[in-house]
């Protein structure tokens, strides 16, 4: 695959140059969390805490039902934000300040919001580093998670044919 073809697969608006510090995005797609996401991913990554997959046991626990694994909530919120923030990412660099602020249950619908926090030079000249703050909220606009994430993003100047 040559560079011209690579450039046809992603949108022009998600290169490093396009991000403005201070901009806040509401991402287009929400997702209702079902056992499909929570139980499948929890089991796939071998998180053995049964409170995420034993509904019978959880009926007598304080929440009265299974709780979604925070790693699944995080992956969904970052995922829902990714087309607009990392479609042109060369790499995920890291994450900090991840806080799971409110429990998520099957049937809850999550939406993702992102603030562009900072832009900086990278070691390689064909990309730059963008810092995002992501927020995940449920159907009642209660914040369920937030995190700060750093991503290495292609520069259009190097990756899009003139």
């Amino acid at each position, binding site marked *: *695959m*040559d*560079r011209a*073809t*690579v450039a046809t*697969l*992603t949108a022009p608006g998600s290169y490093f140059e396009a991000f403005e510090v201070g901009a806040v995005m509401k991402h287009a*797609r929400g*997702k209702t969390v079902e056992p*499909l*996401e929570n139980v*499948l*991913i*929890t089991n*796939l*990554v*071998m*998180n*053995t*805490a*049964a*409170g995420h997959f034993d509904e019978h046991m959880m009926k007598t*626990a304080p929440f009265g039902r299974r709780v979604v*694994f*925070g*790693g*699944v909530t*995080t*992956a*969904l919120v*970052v*995922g*829902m934000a*990714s*087309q607009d923030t*990392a*479609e*042109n*990412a*060369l*790499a*995920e*660099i*890291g*994450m*900090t*300040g*991840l*806080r*799971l602020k409110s*429990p998520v249950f099957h049937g809850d619908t999550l939406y993702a919001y992102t603030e562009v926090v900072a832009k900086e030079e990278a070691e390689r000249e064909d990309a730059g580093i963008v810092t995002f703050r992501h927020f995940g909220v449920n159907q009642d606009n209660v914040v369920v998670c937030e*995190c700060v994430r750093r991503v290495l993003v292609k520069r259009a100047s190097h990756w899009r044919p003139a």
Partner: protein
Amino acid sequence: MLGTQIRRGLRAGVTRVAGGFAFDMTSDFLKTAVPVPKGNHFEAFEIGRRFEHHWGRTLRNSEAALFSTLTLHFNPLYFNREYAIALGHPETPVNPLMVFTLVLGLSVEDLSEVGGAFLGVDDLAYEAPVYPDDTLTARSTVTGLRESSSNAMMGIATWHTEGFNQRGERVISFVRTNMVPRARPRQDAGAENAQQETAQ
């Protein structure tokens, strides 16, 4: 001999109910079963204690693509092989969020299986790409222990967790903090309660 006993016990403990068979919870068979507990309570942790977590896991290509598509993580790097090769990779790398959740998952039985809220993660760094058919293992070190001010049955533990590939290269590290239930109430909390009761 043992097999005969088990079969006899099963027969004695099983009763016919509408739609099938059910165990009778008063039968000797179920009453003699010994629970096999999993996980550690707060008392098991001390600063510096290291856990080499169980199992390890070889990640495969299709499950990595499934993780990205299921979480709507639309960066073609993780599910378009030709695109990944054009960006300089030998193969589609595994979505780093999957590496994170897997390494955390491998740590759960040792660190957080007994329950208590997952509070957060700091200082997460993806240190090397992970590719399909790489095998990851995990280890953690206890770095922080605090009492919960509001709940004598809970502590707050912080661990430094690291994930490694089959060559021993570190691919991820992060610091996780959880509420962790205690096996027994905090002793000084018991003393406070006793004093309060005396005062009343």
